């Protein structure tokens, strides 16, 4: 198994994955805690961001508390040669947070493109899904929206 992340980076990841301290010099505080210099921490974070190990640094909103209460997983059956093109169209919409190409699961799951659609309520989400259907037109053979009923477990990713 490949181990692209060295042990200092692992320590940096575990010290920061729950968030940065909200102080004027957050990187200095984390560095001090790890027993390294602020300059070294900044260098490693920049390197990890460049490699894509860090997607970005910033604010993760609680979208539910901010009023985005309707969250639907829309799923689409797209001919394989068109998935990438359609994924880009859907991924560029400002009410879609993630869009993924995934394998179908025959016989009863023909969908190969998944997109999380967000809005203030279910009706808005359904309207937005209809907008996507209109954009994709004949490229989409069928689609559905799955709303969540209940969270059964949520621990977050532990890296």
């Amino acid at each position: 198994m490949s181990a692209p992340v060295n042990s200092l980076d692992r320590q940096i990841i575990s010290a920061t994955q729950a968030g940065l301290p909200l102080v004027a010099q957050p990187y200095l505080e984390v560095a001090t805690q790890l027993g390294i210099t602020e300059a070294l921490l900044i260098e490693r974070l920049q390197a990890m961001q460049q490699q894509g190990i860090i997607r970005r640094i910033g604010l993760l909103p609680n979208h539910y508390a901010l009023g985005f209460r309707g969250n639907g997983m829309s799923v689409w059956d797209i001919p394989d040669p068109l998935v990438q093109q359609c994924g880009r169209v859907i991924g560029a919409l400002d009410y879609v947070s993630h869009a993924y190409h995934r394998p179908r699961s025959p016989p009863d799951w023909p969908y190969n493109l998944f997109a999380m659609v967000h809005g203030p309520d279910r009706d808005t989400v359904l309207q937005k899904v209809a907008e996507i259907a209109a954009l994709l037109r004949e490229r989409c053979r069928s689609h559905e929206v799955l709303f969540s009923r209940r969270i059964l477990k949520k621990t977050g990713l532990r890296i």
Partner: protein
Amino acid sequence: MAETALLDAADKALINRLQEGFPISSHPFAESGRELGLSEDDLLNRLKRLQENGLMTRFGPLYHAERLGGGLSLCAMAVPEDRFNEITELVNSYPEVAHNYERDHLLNMWFVLATEAPQRIAEVVQEITQRSGITVRNMPKIEEFFVGLKFTL
């Protein structure tokens, strides 16, 4: 939407802007604040308030799990109503299950597997299938069309 009523224009601007990125530098809040027209202290106080009010889940680096060498997949099962609690307990007992949601569909249980070793995904899928007698559909991502979260206020 009562919580958003607590937000003024500067709060909304910083929520929109800081979802896109944050500097890696010695005084990053001062730097970001300049762009937003806020002092370092004002920006920090606003972020603390957002955290206290539960409007912000987290502030910091968002890591890309697969680039760290681990496995990640989305799985689904069609669980009969009368076995739902039993199967929830079984699935949730795996530490590799990060989130699990009930959804309104024939495939009514959807969970994310995150494992340190990529090959562990297939093992967990097979184990849960065997122990439950219900096929676990394994739908790992093939390609991502990710443009970032944009909850614009």
